[in-house]
């Protein structure tokens, strides 16, 4: 499995993600490439593109808006268009909504506060590679750290997401006003996941929890040959 982690000026969870991928996929020999935002192409054989958390381009204009229009994002679009997997966490989720690869947008938190704490999530679907190692209704603890995590979709889109079982995670105690308590959503082909909580920060017992490991374990099993059918 080959993961490409995009790095923008202001990304700050890129190396945490690398460690999480490498630790969970050690047995499979997972390969991780760090891709600078000016690169116009991804390395050959990339299975999943991960867009990390942080404050790309200082959150100028809107969170994720400048990153979504940087050269590497065109490569990301092409990767997803040919059936590739993508994972956006926190700022990465904002980037994926700004690129249009995921529906909705992230607004300022309802209470105006930058919220940095561990929150409980419910796993809402098992029907994606990202959530395949969890069970529906399983409660997991992951940190959130954001100022703009208040997910918005209109009522029609919310109904569609529910009907298509595309809500991956919901907050047990909604910390930011997100519509439908949504913490993470999937694309229509279920190969793109965006989420505000940080599974990569819950991937080591010494660093506050291991509930995120199951996602990286599941992703370790991705291989180029599997992509066409998974």
């Amino acid at each position, binding site marked *: 499995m080959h993961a490409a982690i995009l790095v923008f000026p202001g990304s700050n969870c890129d190396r945490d993600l690398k460690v999480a991928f490498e630790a969970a996929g050690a047995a499979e020999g997972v390969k991780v490439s760090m891709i600078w935002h000016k690169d116009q192409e991804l390395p050959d054989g990339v299975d999943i593109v991960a867009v990390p958390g942080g404050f790309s381009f200082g959150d100028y204009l809107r969170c994720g*808006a400048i990153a979504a229009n940087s050269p590497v994002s065109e490569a990301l679009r092409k990767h997803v268009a040919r059936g590739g997997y993508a994972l956006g966490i926190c700022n990465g989720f904002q980037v994926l909504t700004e690129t249009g690869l995921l529906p909705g947008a992230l*607004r300022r938190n*309802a209470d*105006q506060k930058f919220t940095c704490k561990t929150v409980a999530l419910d796993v809402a679907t098992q029907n994606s590679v990202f959530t395949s190692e969890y069970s529906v209704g399983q409660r997991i603890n992951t940190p959130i750290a954001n100022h703009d995590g208040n997910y918005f979709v209109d009522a029609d889109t919310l109904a569609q997401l529910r009907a298509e079982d595309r809500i991956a995670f919901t907050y047990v105690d909604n910390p930011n006003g997100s519509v439908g308590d949504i913490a993470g959503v999937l694309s229509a082909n279920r190969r793109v996941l965006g989420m505000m909580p940080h599974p990569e920060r819950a991937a080591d017992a010494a660093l506050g929890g291991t509930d995120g490991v199951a996602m990286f374990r599941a992703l370790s099993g991705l291989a180029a040959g599997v992509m066409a059918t998974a």
Partner: protein
Amino acid sequence: MKARVFVMLKNGVLDPQGEAVRHALGTLGFDSVQGVRQGKVIELELDETDAALAEAQVGEMCEKLLANTVIESYRVEMI
């Protein structure tokens, strides 16, 4: 030629910053304020001399970058 772009959260999209400003105004004694919506003003300097072409270009910029039309509306003023 200059253009001024006004970007606002759409009606119906909660504006927590506007709400915070409304509360602060109330604290200052401005009891008559019923609602506050906060937005952005972006000024552009353009080479284009044809106002209609310039306005069309700015509209495209709004759609592609300056506004997120999922939650924001925009208005362009040529000046």
